[in-house]
């Protein structure tokens, strides 16, 4: 091993790509065999490795790709672009010696998991739609809320505490159709990185997790069309080079045809009513342009637009509802290399989430709308002076515009004055620095510090309340005038100590401020939930998390395993006061309807994964407790959160026996959600009313489910050979010249189709979605009876999807 520090140092830097389509390889390992000194590529495929002058065996490896090996004589700075060829499917078994795949043990980052979209696509998909959010819910520490909800809950945190980034742009509502599907179209996505603890300093603004999703960059080598026809939706993706190896694009679209299918269903549900015209659909559009200006500069433009539209028409009562909602995001990024050791990324981001709800009856019309809009500017630097340090620093600024629920109404030509539109404005800024420092071979520390600042600014009107909730005063702030500001230091640290190459212990501490809040007026997560900034009444959320873990790999990294425990506190949580109504916002501040409290969560997570071979997959198990306590809920007493889940387990298996077939299996088990049900009744003014029990004192039945999938990919070469043989035979019989036979057209040669059969809920478990009481008779007449009822959403659902590319 060359001795560090004596000889002069030089840097090898560059990008790693997929040879077949030019996509950046994220997290590829780059190292030299001598002393196993190495690094891995960042989210843009960039690496930088500084070594003393000398001769090295330089290796680049990436799971699923043929490794690149070269002997280099390092006597000056070298810049390289490495293109790795994907392994043939049947070559999966090839053992790659010397591969550095112990990142999970050796990195200082804990509580993080990277999922490849190819891996996600092999799993059974609900209604045939590949869903990233559902896939990450199969990981320990990440809980789903059950069927019909793609909000996720990380280590006891709320669904608003996850920072969901699509190419650096935050997504505020990641769900379609009340949460049955996520907004991420699997065909446009390349990589998913989830951090549930030990959040590095470059991320902030949320307490619980980061879900960093990268869109594909577009094939820079050749034009490619992918698509699929599913039971409820169709997808089409077009990508290709505009200038080969320099400029590429990708456009991907998806739309459901549920609106067509739902009409007969509406008729079935309420045959007596005429619901003609009721419909529901959603669509997604992803686009990205990627321009490699020079070796030092790259530019990316990413755009996402998605929308849900729900129409409800009841002809009988002439009652109509029109509900559109959706996200629009755009991000312009510029990668620049100041030197082979200093990488930078500057970005400008726009994100907008809008919800609107219009109800009309006769000539009376009422519209309710809400949303959030952000403009973000960000500049991040990565400085890699030598293989032992990886220094990150940066600055970011966000301008938020919040539109909590607003109402407008009119009757005929008369427009009611129900208060002016309430918008809330704020500045949100942060600066950070962090160093990932390998102190010795055994000890590695990632220490970071983030400083965040938040200010709510005018125009703003504060309605001051008395103890009965009546307005007694109003304070008016002019445009740009500061209403209140907050700031905080957020130290982050994680430490790794490795006993051997395949065994390490890690610990982390993170402190996070979150200046935005999501308030949900319903007991389920709906698009009606409103985003609110911190205000003079709402203090910023503050989270502290401690985590400790043991990480061990077996059998040359074929198996990885980990055990992690965590403890987390969350201060300044918000919820609506009991009995709050949506119209409380009118002539008022939404935060006057809130109550404030805190949360606490702790648990242990067990993870065991087989990562190579024909059979891959994992088993995860989480034991956890999640508490909440609010001043005006449950008489101020602490209670278990709705998604408190004592036991949560998942089993995920994919099996690739050969080129033609592959199979997937998912099994999940979770303790039931908690809820509040009436547990007393009483007579009042001659009618019967309910007395609700303590908050979340009822536990729903447990959730469990098995899904299976099989994908059949016909061997196209074989098909073409057979086809040609048939042609030849036929022409031979007719005595024609074989050389004149017209072969299938060239696009057809590139055509590859596959069929996926997914079976959701194989043993038809009736998992609870709702539990309610059905009361019959009259209490005052003594013939009152009550029955408990459970509503389940999905029975066994087999679906078939046809995917193609050419």
């Amino acid at each position, binding site marked *: 091993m060359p001795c560090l520090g004596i000889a002069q140092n030089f840097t090898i830097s560059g990008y790693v790509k997929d040879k077949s389509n030019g996509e950046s390889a994220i997290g590829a390992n780059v190292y030299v065999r001598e002393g196993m000194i190495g690094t891995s590529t960042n989210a843009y495929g960039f690496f930088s490795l500084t070594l003393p002058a000398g001769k090295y065996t330089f290796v680049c490896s990436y799971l699923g790709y043929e490794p690149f090996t070269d002997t280099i004589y390092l006597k000056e700075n070298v810049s390289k672009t490495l293109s790795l060829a994907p392994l043939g499917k049947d070559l999966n078994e090839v053992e790659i010696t010397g591969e550095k795949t112990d990142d999970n043990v050796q990195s200082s980052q804990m509580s993080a998991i990277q999922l490849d979209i190819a891996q996600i696509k092999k799993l059974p998909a609900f209604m045939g739609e590949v869903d990233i959010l559902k896939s990450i819910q199969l990981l320990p520490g990440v809980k789903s809320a059950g069927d019909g909800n793609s909000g996720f809950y990380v280590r006891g945190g709320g669904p608003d505490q996850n920072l969901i980034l699509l190419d650096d742009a935050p997504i505020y509502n990641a769900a379609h159709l009340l949460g049955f599907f996520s907004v991420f179209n699997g065909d446009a996505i390349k990589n998913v990185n989830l951090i549930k603890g030990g959040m590095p300093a470059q991320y902030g603004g949320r307490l619980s997790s980061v879900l960093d999703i990268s869109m594909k960059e577009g094939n820079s080598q050749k034009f490619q069309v992918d698509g699929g026809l599913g039971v409820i939706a169709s997808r089409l993706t077009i990508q290709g080079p505009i200038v080969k190896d320099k400029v590429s694009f990708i456009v991907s679209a998806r739309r459901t045809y549920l609106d067509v299918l739902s009409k007969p269903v509406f008729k079935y549900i309420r045959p007596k009513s005429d619901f003609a015209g009721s419909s529901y659909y959603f669509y997604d559009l992803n686009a990205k342009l990627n321009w490699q200006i020079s070796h030092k500069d790259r530019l990316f433009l990413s755009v996402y637009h998605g929308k849900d539209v729900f129409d409800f028409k009841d002809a009988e009562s002439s009652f109509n509802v029109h509900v559109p909602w959706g996200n629009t995001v755009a991000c312009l990024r510029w990668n620049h290399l100041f030197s082979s050791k200093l990488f930078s990324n500057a970005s400008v981001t726009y994100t907008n989430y809008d919800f609107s709800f219009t109800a009309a009856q006769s000539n009376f019309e009422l519209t309710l709308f809400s949303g959030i809009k952000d403009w973000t500017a960000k500049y991040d630097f990565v400085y890699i002076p030598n293989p032992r340090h990886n220094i990150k620093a940066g600055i970011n600024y966000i301008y938020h515009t919040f539109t909590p629920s607003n109402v407008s109404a009119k009757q005929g030509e008369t427009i009611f004055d129900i208060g002016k539109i309430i918008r809330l404005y704020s500045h949100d800024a942060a600066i950070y620095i962090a160093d990932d420092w390998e102190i010795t071979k055994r000890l590695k520390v990632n220490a970071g510090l983030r400083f965040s600042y938040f200010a709510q600014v005018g125009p703003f009107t504060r309605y001051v309340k008395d103890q009965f909730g*009546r307005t007694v005063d109003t304070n008016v702030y002019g445009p740009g005038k500061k209403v209140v500001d907050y700031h905080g230091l957020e130290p982050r640290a994680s430490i790794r100590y490795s006993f051997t190459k395949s065994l390490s212990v890690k610990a982390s501490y993170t402190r996070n401020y979150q200046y935005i809040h999501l308030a949900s007026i319903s007991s389920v997560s709906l698009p009606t939930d409103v985003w609110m900034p911190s205000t003079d009444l709402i203090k910023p959320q503050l989270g502290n998390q401690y985590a400790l873990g043991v990480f061990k790999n077996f059998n040359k990294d074929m198996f990885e395993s980990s055990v992690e425990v965590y403890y987390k506190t969350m201060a300044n949580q918000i919820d609506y006061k009991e*009995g709050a109504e*949506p119209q409380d916002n009118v002539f008022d501040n939404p935060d006057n309807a809130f109550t404030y409290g805190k949360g606490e969560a702790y648990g242990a997570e067990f993870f065991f994964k087989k990562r190579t071979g024909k059979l891959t997959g994992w088993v995860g198990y989480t034991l956890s407790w999640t508490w909440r306590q609010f001043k005006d809920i449950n008489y101020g007493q602490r209670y278990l959160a709705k998604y408190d889940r004592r036991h949560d387990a998942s089993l995920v298996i994919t099996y690739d026996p050969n080129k033609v077939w592959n199979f997937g299996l998912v099994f999940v088990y979770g303790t039931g959600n908690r*809820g509040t049900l009436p547990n007393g009744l009483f007579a009042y003014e001659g009618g019967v009313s309910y007395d609700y029990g303590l908050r979340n004192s009822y536990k729903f039945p447990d959730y469990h489910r098995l899904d299976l999938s099989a994908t059949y990919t016909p061997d196209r070469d074989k098909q073409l050979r057979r086809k040609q043989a048939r042609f030849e035979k036929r022409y031979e019989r007719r005595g024609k010249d074989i050389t004149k036979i017209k072969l299938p057209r060239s696009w057809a040669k590139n055509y590859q189709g596959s069929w996926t059969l997914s079976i959701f809920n194989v043993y038809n478990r009736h998992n609870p979605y709702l539990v*309610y009481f059905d009361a019959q008779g009259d209490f005052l007449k003594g013939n009152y009876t009550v029955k408990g009822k459970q509503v389940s959403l999905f029975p066994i659902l087999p679906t078939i999807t046809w995917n193609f590319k050419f």
Partner: protein
Amino acid sequence: MKKIQIYLSYTFKSTPLFAVVLLFASCQKDIDVKLPAYKEKLVVEASIETGKTAQVLLSMTAPYFGNVDLSDPTRFFVKGAFITITDGVVVDTLKELDPTTGYLYLGTKLFGQVGKSYLMTIKYNGDTYTSITNILNPIPLDSVFFKAETDTFGYAWGHLTDPVGKGNCYRWFAKRITKDQFFVAPFNSAFDDKFIDGTSFDFSYERPPQPNERDGYSDQPHAGYYNIGDTVIIKFCTIGTTEYLFWRSYYSNKASNGNPFSAPANIQSNISGGAGVIGAFCGYSPSFDTLIIKK
């Protein structure tokens, strides 16, 4: 304007969102629900009105689900409570109308007067409950009228001019002469002037069912309508803010009954004391209008 509130409650707490989910609902089945142990609460339905003595109905809540016999609701009536009402000068001890059943307690000598405050004290089972209410200045309707929705059926309307300054709250009762026995309040019968402060406006209410009509009322073809030939007396009352907040939370609780989507709403009370009490002591300042519905 009240209509806006009803719409929002309706749309957010009920049908359309529920319909979307039902689109996917595969099955509904009966299950055994194991609820935690329940401690009964005192239910107080107390009022005093201009020119009338106080009236208090006392009962206990019943456990919702479990091995409790609900076949005799009189089991939950409260007997032997000691109730007083005072305006600070006169103390009226309420009389139990029928000591064998309990439930209804009536005042004998203190008559409600505009501008006065009343303190109610209930002693029962070792606990003491107290509440204060006021009889405010009445704010009468400017006029009442009828608007047909079909040939002969329609709703009763009122025209109100709300005095400038927020904090006025109202409650509407109605009864048909000869046909109805009691003044009954329709659903969402209480409102405040948050939206309508200082304005003049029209608003309407359905015909509420009389107690003996409640069974299957909503299935009747002309439920909620008044008919040509009806003579309706409208009792329009001014009430206090805490009383309004009680009625609001009471109706909010009723609106969420059986709807598993809505967050549970506990009822706010203006009565304090004891281990848990449901209900309110409400002072009413009525003004009366007669609406004769002609062709």
